[in-house]
């Protein structure tokens, strides 16, 4: 059982992680090394389909499934926030301090990094009773490219995973929010963007309250 031998220079009784004898750990890895690296789109599609397949086991409702995808995206958003800010030039390395800069950061930086282009739109809810709701629009979410939703699950939008990422970025910036993905593309023939998806960002009351104070000063 060669695979059970502990690495050279360490023993199982020692606490802590073992490292290769080269001493290289992830802390030696330049954070920008894979900044512009590419992998095949299929490798993402395969992994994502397994992720959705796994998440759809033992679920009670579509919301349940979307929640699971959201939960899996959340930690990514938290980490991307730091990673992307770190990669900004020093002068623009500050965290977003109000809702608009935060949403812009998501629409431009996060999207550009993950999907190679900015999101297609950013809107504020036109309903005056919902000042806490904003919408990020993607006409053709990359994550949904190879996903066809069965008829009996028509409300499902697997971009809930991306919604989770956005939610992670918001939470990490101390703008707690709930983010959900909704399909708004018409399923008619000749429709330009049948996969059009709106990410509805609903900020927590305390965020709105703070924003109100800051706006006045």
């Amino acid at each position: 059982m060669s695979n059970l031998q502990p690495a050279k220079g360490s023993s199982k009784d020692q606490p802590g992680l073992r490292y290769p004898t080269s001493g290289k750990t992830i802390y030696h890895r330049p954070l920008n090394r894979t900044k512009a690296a590419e992998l095949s789109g299929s490798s993402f599609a395969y992994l994502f389909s397994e992720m959705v397949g796994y998440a759809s086991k033992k679920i009670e409702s579509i919301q349940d499934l979307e929640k699971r995808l959201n939960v899996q995206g959340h930690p990514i958003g938290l980490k991307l926030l730091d990673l992307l800010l770190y990669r900004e030039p020093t002068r623009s390395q500050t965290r977003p301090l109000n809702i608009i800069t935060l949403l812009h950061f998501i629409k431009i930086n996060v999207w550009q990094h993950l999907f190679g282009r900015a999101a297609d739109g950013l809107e504020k809810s036109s309903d005056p009773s919902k000042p806490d709701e904003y919408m990020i629009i993607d006409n053709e979410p990359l994550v949904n490219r190879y996903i066809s939703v069965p008829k009996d699950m028509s409300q499902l939008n697997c971009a809930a995973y991306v919604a989770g990422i956005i939610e992670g970025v918001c939470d990490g910036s101390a703008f707690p929010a709930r983010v959900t993905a909704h399909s708004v593309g018409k399923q008619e023939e000749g429709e330009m963007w049948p996969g059009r998806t709106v990410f509805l960002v609903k900020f927590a009351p305390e965020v709105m309250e703070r924003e109100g104070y800051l706006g006045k000063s």
Partner: protein
Amino acid sequence: MSANKAARVGEEIWKGRIDKVNAELVTLTYGTIVAQLCKDFEADYVEVNKQLDRMGYNIGLRLIEDYLAKSNTMRRCSNFRETADMIAKVGFKIFLNITPTVTNWTSDSKQFSLVFEENPLADFVELPDDGRAQDELWYSNIFCGVLRGALEMVQMQVEAHFISDVLRGNDTTEMRVSLIRYIDDELPPEDD
């Protein structure tokens, strides 16, 4: 196809015929899958390995079509050594832009190792410091399933498992692949 030619073919396809995405999107997505499995199976890493292998198997079953279409090699590999080269230099190249080294053949040419200098799935990764993960979890185990599934679809039954991983503190990341048998073509049921 010789190993050198396979490498050239892989490079050409990667450059010209592959639709690409940001590498970190893939890396982070795989990371969240493994993290979720560890949570769901309450750090029963043996079970996590199994799940990853199963997911890989599902992927492999479908990925082989994609591989054949893109590599345009409609010719069967003449022996298992050629298969190994094609996996490393074309397969891994066109999906993950890496070419693991094929090495450590047994004398009967039925077992080899893939040594991964680079592994995009494991970027940013450190295993949990719980005294067990480094002994039990094979973080990239999905690869084993992918090979098993993909090769099964082209009539090869193989067994694949990792024997070392830099994430465990080993000096290399090495996977062992063994050919169990060539699966005979089964005749389709007769039409009456």
